[in-house]
């Protein structure tokens, strides 16, 4: 591998200090039931639109400690030309985790996990955007996760759809994301990072897994569904229903944030 000359580089190898905890501290403590909120409750959501001055639209979202910033550029002239782009626009999504956003320091170069998240984000947003109104143009959605405390994909979807609305991109509906962690009998909505990772150390019981769903609330269409783990079919359906419900809970917050930005940008037009 040729040396990366485009960055200031540190030593060849370095380790996260958490790997050197004394053995006593390393054993996983039994997980307590989530503090401060019920299993079906989402974390308080803080959302603002229009913070990035250079972008056509932007939004910032905080759910617990998960912090996400998104900016939207375009519609603008595409860099790559192909036939598909002539009649309808292209939606490009890029999701990055800041190097300091996770417990372990992340790499500078986008990893396959981030590429997978970018693809999932793109597939979840696509059905909502009226791309046929933007022939020969591309719309860029850039998402930066500043701090990852679980349910990143779900919140990235919500955040990105707010930024698209803020950018005045025509959409059929807003997109709301919601995540759920199934741990045996417990369904934890909007899991934090510890809850998300909980199951791997928890043992070998069945019916554990994660579900992330994106919903177009007004059209009642599911634009994204991702699940992994090991779920019974009935649990999966129940999880999908629960996720849809918690998406609806987000709607007023998202609506308020978008409208506040509309009002700030311009007073009501003369009749």
């Amino acid at each position: 591998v040729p040396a990366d000359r485009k960055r200031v580089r540190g030593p060849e190898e370095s380790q996260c200090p958490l790997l050197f905890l004394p053995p006593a501290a390393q054993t996983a403590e039994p997980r307590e039931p989530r503090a401060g909120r019920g299993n079906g409750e989402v974390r308080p959501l803080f959302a603002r639109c229009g913070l990035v001055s250079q972008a056509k639209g932007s939004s910032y979202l905080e759910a617990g400690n998960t912090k996400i910033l998104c900016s939207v550029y375009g519609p603008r002239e595409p860099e790559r030309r192909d036939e598909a782009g002539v009649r309808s626009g292209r939606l490009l999504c890029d999701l990055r985790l800041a190097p300091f956003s996770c417990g372990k320091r992340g790499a500078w170069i986008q990893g396959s996990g981030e590429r997978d998240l970018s693809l999932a984000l793109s597939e979840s947003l696509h059905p909502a955007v009226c791309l046929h109104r933007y022939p020969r143009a591309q719309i860029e959605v850039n998402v930066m996760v500043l701090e990852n405390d679980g349910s990143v994909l779900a919140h990235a979807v919500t955040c990105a759809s707010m930024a698209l609305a803020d950018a005045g991109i025509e959409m059929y509906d807003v997109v709301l994301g919601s995540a759920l962690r199934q741990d045996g009998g417990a369904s934890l909505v909007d899991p934090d990072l510890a809850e998300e990772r909980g199951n791997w150390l928890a043992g070998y019981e069945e019916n554990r897994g994660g579900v992330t769903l994106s919903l177009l609330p007004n059209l009642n269409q599911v634009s994204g569904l991702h699940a992994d783990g090991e779920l019974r079919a009935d649990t999966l359906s129940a999880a999908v229903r629960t996720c849809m419900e918690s998406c609806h809970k987000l709607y007023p917050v998202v609506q308020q944030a978008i409208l506040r930005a509309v009002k700030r940008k311009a007073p009501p037009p003369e009749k």
Partner: protein
Amino acid sequence: MAAGFKTAEPLEYHRSFLKENCRPDGRELGEFRPTTLNIGSIGTADGSAMVKIGNTTVICGIKAELSAPPSDAPDKGYIVPNVDLPPLCSSRFRPGPPGEQAQAASQFIADVIDGSKIIKKEDLCIEKSKLCWVLYCDIMCLDYDGNVLDACIITLLAALKNTQIPKVTINKETDLAEVDIEHKRHLQINKHPVSSSFAVFDDTVLIVDPTAEEESLATSVITAVVDEDDQLCAFHKPGGSSLSAEKLQDCITRSVTRHREVGKLIDKVLESTKASK
């Protein structure tokens, strides 16, 4: 008509303001944009800060990791500063490896750290030739509206002041490092460099804290870094038109004043952050 003039003939548009000793955003030539600071907001980082100079927003997160000291300096640790200008912050940046501007900024920050000795690298050594700290300082621009260098240095300084690293000992029996996260210490900040950037219009008119548009229209851009002892730590003038000695002196004098303001800001925010905890 004004909007049309602005897009079609941006340079003329700016000149028309400078003639009247003011700028399109209503500032005077020597006026900085309002600067705000937020410290310690990223829980996953060992130290963090976010600064806003006008619209320009830059965040710095510091992650401390353990490594073996460099072989040519066995009693030192590492500081690894990198500036990222992601496509998120402006339409002028493309995804992919760092562009020229980001590379130059990273190198400039590294030079400032080395030149001013913000932190003594010896302080990062845990055991000679065996174990030391690596401070990864990732500085990321979230909104690019000019003068990122000033913002980078302020956020870096504030984040370093916010950083806490756990106590590390080497177990004599196993010869392995042991980390005690219960006991953390702040870093020893040795010097407080602060930078001030200027843009030169038409080879003569000097303005401070340029916006992105002013930067792109200016004939030359200058950054001066001074520390609390009014010492010049770094001076950055990448090409462009030449400048008289008096103008340069003027820049440095203004930088000294700016240092006082920024120093006060950092102290004030640190105080209030502590108080709120």
